[in-house]
């Protein structure tokens, strides 16, 4: 059986099994985790069997579906899709681990929750793997359904509003993309006499299409992808979705789902509309830089922990857009690796913030203060996630941000210089958040009101008198337990490892980016002498 097909079907199978077990939470949870771990192993095998510099699409397979319209269920991975499949395979067990004991709304079963997450994983892997434009569209829309239920069924108090908003935004973008897909199909039909949705064939046909056709196709795709990987001003669904979604779902939304947008730019917009991509690059670059600055300032101005994450992501998507449309291999490799590194860094940030909220029961920043003294490990984890978020050299995100900036400086210096200001703003919003939540004296209603119940700290070193009122009361504030540390530890290791030795990711991504660059017909600007 094709490995890639297994990667798609295994989580689906897992979802069915878990859904059947959903009445029995004690069985459903380990089964779901087991499936996600096997999936992780499969992804690792796929990574190892992938040959960088080999065929454009690997592990590929194809089955005819609707031959009269040239639609087939064909799959294959390039380096960029491979790393995204690996990222979701990595994040899913961590998300399940985090959600192991998370409070869910009444009447909702954890088995159902885990089953939906596995369905979402299967669809996401498929959307990265498909090489048929029509199937891509279908999956792009179907993906919304489990997510709609995950947010709308398991989220916070305004979950219905957020879920509908999320759904409508993405759905609308998808429809506009469908228009482009059909346009591409009919153009191929008019040129070759036979319409097709096959990505590789379309690429060859559309490369010679007149610019006006390309521009329309580009704009259709752009609407879908700019909503998905939210570019300002199409971003406002994300803060609501992130705020209302359960933490585990928020990890998937900002960690993986959004990346379908940036992935779409690389896989569809650029090769299918090469001339238009270059023509309209200034538009995307402008939106990207606005995203960096606007998202950063927004993140700084937020009063809610989860909305903070959303705006941080918006800023980072600005960097990714900049990297893709600067058209140098460094910037584009930076952007593609940013997709991985943002998932790791922001994924960890969301999880840590989830652990903070699990303790204080509030997502308002002002409800926290001075936690570091009581929960030093939690504080350290927030700092590590934060440092990666602000792209400190030595962390994974630095490699990507550095590549994006140094690569785009060569062709688009003004945009690169403006985006570099985002470096300072990132330090401001990350450290300010850390200062408010972790440093200073213990304060904030979320912490001081959490007076000891059964889970209260008993270690005198950890317990702190709440100071306000009831004398001997102790805070129900505990540092991370073994499960939580286990959830975060793999991400910490990757943050440091990929910061100091990014070659494993870069080596896989670079050939695919080079292929994309040559499909667009651009080359790196010539410096007087390459290499060192």
């Amino acid at each position, binding site marked *: 059986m094709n490995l890639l097909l297994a990667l798609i079907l295994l989580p689906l199978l897992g979802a069915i099994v878990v859904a059947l077990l959903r009445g029995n939470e004690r069985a459903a949870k380990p089964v779901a985790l087991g499936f996600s771990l096997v999936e992780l192993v499969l992804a690792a095998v796929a990574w190892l069997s992938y040959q960088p510099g080999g065929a454009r699409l690997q592990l590929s397979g194809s089955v005819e579906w609707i031959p009269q319209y040239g639609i087939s269920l064909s799959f294959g991975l390039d380096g960029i899709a491979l790393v995204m499949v690996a990222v979701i395979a990595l994040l899913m067990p961590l998300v399940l681990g985090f959600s192991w004991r998370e409070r869910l709304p009444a009447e909702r079963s954890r088995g159902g929750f885990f089953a939906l997450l596995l369905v979402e994983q299967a669809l996401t892997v498929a959307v990265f793997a498909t090489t048929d434009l029509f199937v891509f569209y279908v999956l792009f829309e179907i993906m919304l359904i489990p997510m709609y239920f995950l947010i709308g069924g398991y989220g916070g108090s305004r979950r219905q509003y957020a879920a509908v908003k999320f759904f409508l935004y993405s759905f609308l973008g998808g429809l506009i993309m469908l228009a482009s897909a059909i346009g591409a199909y009919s153009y191929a039909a008019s040129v070759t006499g036979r319409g097709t949705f096959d990505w590789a064939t379309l690429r060859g046909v559309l490369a010679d299409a007149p610019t006006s056709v390309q521009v329309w196709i580009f704009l259709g795709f752009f609407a879908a992808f700019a909503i998905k990987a939210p570019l300002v001003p199409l971003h406002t669904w994300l803060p609501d979705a992130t705020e209302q979604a359960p933490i585990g779902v928020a990890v998937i939304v900002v960690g993986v789902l959004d990346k379908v947008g940036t992935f779409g730019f690389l896989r569809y917009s650029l090769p299918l509309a090469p001339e238009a991509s270059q023509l309209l690059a200034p538009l995307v670059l402008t939106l990207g830089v606005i995203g960096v600055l606007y998202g950063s300032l927004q993140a*700084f101005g937020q009063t809610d922990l989860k909305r903070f994450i959303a705006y941080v992501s918006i800023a980072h998507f600005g960097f990714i857009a900049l990297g893709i449309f600067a058209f140098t291999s460094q910037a584009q490799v930076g952007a593609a690796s940013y997709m991985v590194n943002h998932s790791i860094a922001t994924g960890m940030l969301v999880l840590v913030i989830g652990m903070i909220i699990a303790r204080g029961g509030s997502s308002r920043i002002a409800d926290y203060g001075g936690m570091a003294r009581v929960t030093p490990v939690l504080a350290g984890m927030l700092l590590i996630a934060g440092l990666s978020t602000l792209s400190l050299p030595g962390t994974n995100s630095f490699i990507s941000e550095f590549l994006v900036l140094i690569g785009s400086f060569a062709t688009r210096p003004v945009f690169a210089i403006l985006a*570099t200001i985002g470096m300072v703003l990132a330090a401001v919003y990350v450290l300010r958040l850390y200062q408010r939540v972790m440093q200073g004296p213990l304060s904030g209603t979320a912490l001081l009101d959490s007076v000891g119940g059964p889970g209260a700290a008993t270690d005198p070193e950890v317990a702190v008198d709440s100071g306000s009122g009831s004398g001997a009361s102790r805070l129900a504030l505990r540092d991370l337990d073994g499960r939580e540390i286990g959830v975060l530890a793999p991400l910490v290791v990757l943050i440091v490892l990929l910061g100091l030795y990014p070659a494993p990711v870069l080596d896989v991504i670079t050939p695919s980016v080079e292929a994309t660059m040559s499909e667009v017909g651009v080359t790196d600007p010539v410096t007087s002498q390459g290499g060192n």
Partner: protein
Amino acid sequence: MDQRNGLEDGVTTSMLAAPEPVQAAQGAIQNNAWLIIAIPLLGAAVLLLAGRRANGWGHLLGCATVIASFGYALALFTSVGGAEQAARSLHLFSWIPVNSLQVDFGLRIDPLSLVFVLLITGVGALIHIYSIGYMAHDQQGRVGRGNTERRRFFGYLNLFVAAMLILVLGNSFVTLYLGWEGVGLASYLLIGFWQQRPSAAGAATKAFVMNRVGDVGLALAIFLLYARLGTTQYSEVFARAGELSTGTVLAISLLLLLGACGKSGQVPLQAWLPDAMEGPTPVSALIHAATMVTAGVYLIARANPLYTMTETGQLVVAIVGAVTLLVGCVIGCAYDDIKKVLAYSTVSQIGYMMLAVGLGPAGYALGIMHLLTHGFFKAALFLGAGSVMHGMRDEVDMRKFGGLYRYMPITFATFAVGYLALIGFPFLSGYYSKEAIIAAAFGEPGWQGWALGGAAVLGAGLTAFYMTRLMLLTFFGERRWQHRTASDGGEFHPHESPPVMTGPMIVLGIGSVAAGFLFTSGERLVHFLSPALGELQEGHTVLPHSVIPVFTLGFSALGVLVAWLVVGRRPVPETAPSRVSPLVRAARADLYGNALNRAVAVRPTVGLADGLARFDRVGVDGAVNGVATTLGAASQVLRRWQTGFVRSYAMSMLVGGVLLVAALLSVGTP
């Protein structure tokens, strides 16, 4: 010494600013030089990950790693020192390889990096040892067992040493950048070490953010170098610097200077450094005096082939240095907080170093020499201040000190030596290094010589004033603490610190005395550095050479005298007098540096962020929701056969989608 012969050969063969030959590292000692970095890095990892288990022995491990690095550095120094003067490069692994951008992780072992490695590990080891005593008490004053804070402290300190070593040993601008922000992180962690104090937390954030402003400069310089030369490695950049246009060289030199200003607390990015005194005093000694804050000077000295090409760039560096040295002196005169005075003194002394490296080939080596002597005497002064605080319940207000020489004789003696070295007392280390800079400043042509030299001499006088004031307030005069209480309400019982603290102070005191003579006899240091920095050029000074020391010493003596007249002869008021001249008031307000930052950067940013947050909710999201509502209203028509919110929206959008498809097809048909 045959070493001298080798050095002299090196001098004759190495042309000014010419690219020096770079050879691969040879022998086991050079090939394993990465251990110098890896050992303290491993120490940091163990200390921070082991948790409470390591509380009992963590401080010993922390010291051992740095001492081991120092030992290795000495061995490396010996292995390189006698051989020919080529820089050695050690390739470790390919770090960021993407097509034409090939950033290697490699080390460059040359005289410049070697003196820094010795300074960092040597002074670093002493300060680690001192910290065993200084950090023995935790915040509650408890001693010994279960001292989590001290273990964490040593973990951060080890992390700092490793990052600083990467900074100076890296062989490209990108590895420098890794160390550069790495020390920024360590500095952030250590300034905010007592993080429950809001002031410490605020100071830490401020330091990191202001450094990041500078880092933008450094980053852009790297981007520009890569865009023009396709490389970021020192040997390549310097060998091919001639291909750069004059404008590019100037831009790079100014961008690097911005980075240097951030890290080294130079005007206009100086305001974070005095606040950094919120950290424990050993941190102030190691990071915010002896090593990290001098990284800016290192950067400019390292990039000397670029600066030598641009006179304008040099002049800007020199002016920044001259302005900063005066600003530091003036503010230093106004503070009563012993650590803040020393902090502004550091700002000012780094100003001297900047001035020196801004003089081009006439000053690179002099800047490094002052950096080294300053490393000794300023570390001695800070450790002395820490010892005073240790014996005075962490009090820092000098108005509560007085007459302490009797209670802390060793602290007094080592502090006094550091003091004399700093004010340039003849034949102590600071005398040699500062005198040389002042003479070189006067060597600049025309008005520049007078302006830069004049500022340097004036600074020497002011330095003598504020340091004498500090000495008199702290160690001499009335024992003002006898009838006062400490900030925590307790009584003062001044006492000498334990040997584990006084030992390092004595060693640094000896260094403060001897370093200058050792470095200058036979121009040893200048010759040693010449392969990396080019040969020292001496210009014709606008004043006769023999007059300058007289001039400087005269100003310094005047400073001492005025200080004695102001604070030595009269009783010291308990609180600072409030009826003072506008200049004093301005100095007490840091010459309005913080006010300026607030007005120019902080308030606009906060205002903008708050405004934008509202705009995003009401404006952008409002508009979107408005459109959605309109569409919803339009689709009311369809609601007859459609139930449910989502489906009605979906339908209206489907219609839109179909319209678009139609539009596209009509356009797309050839």
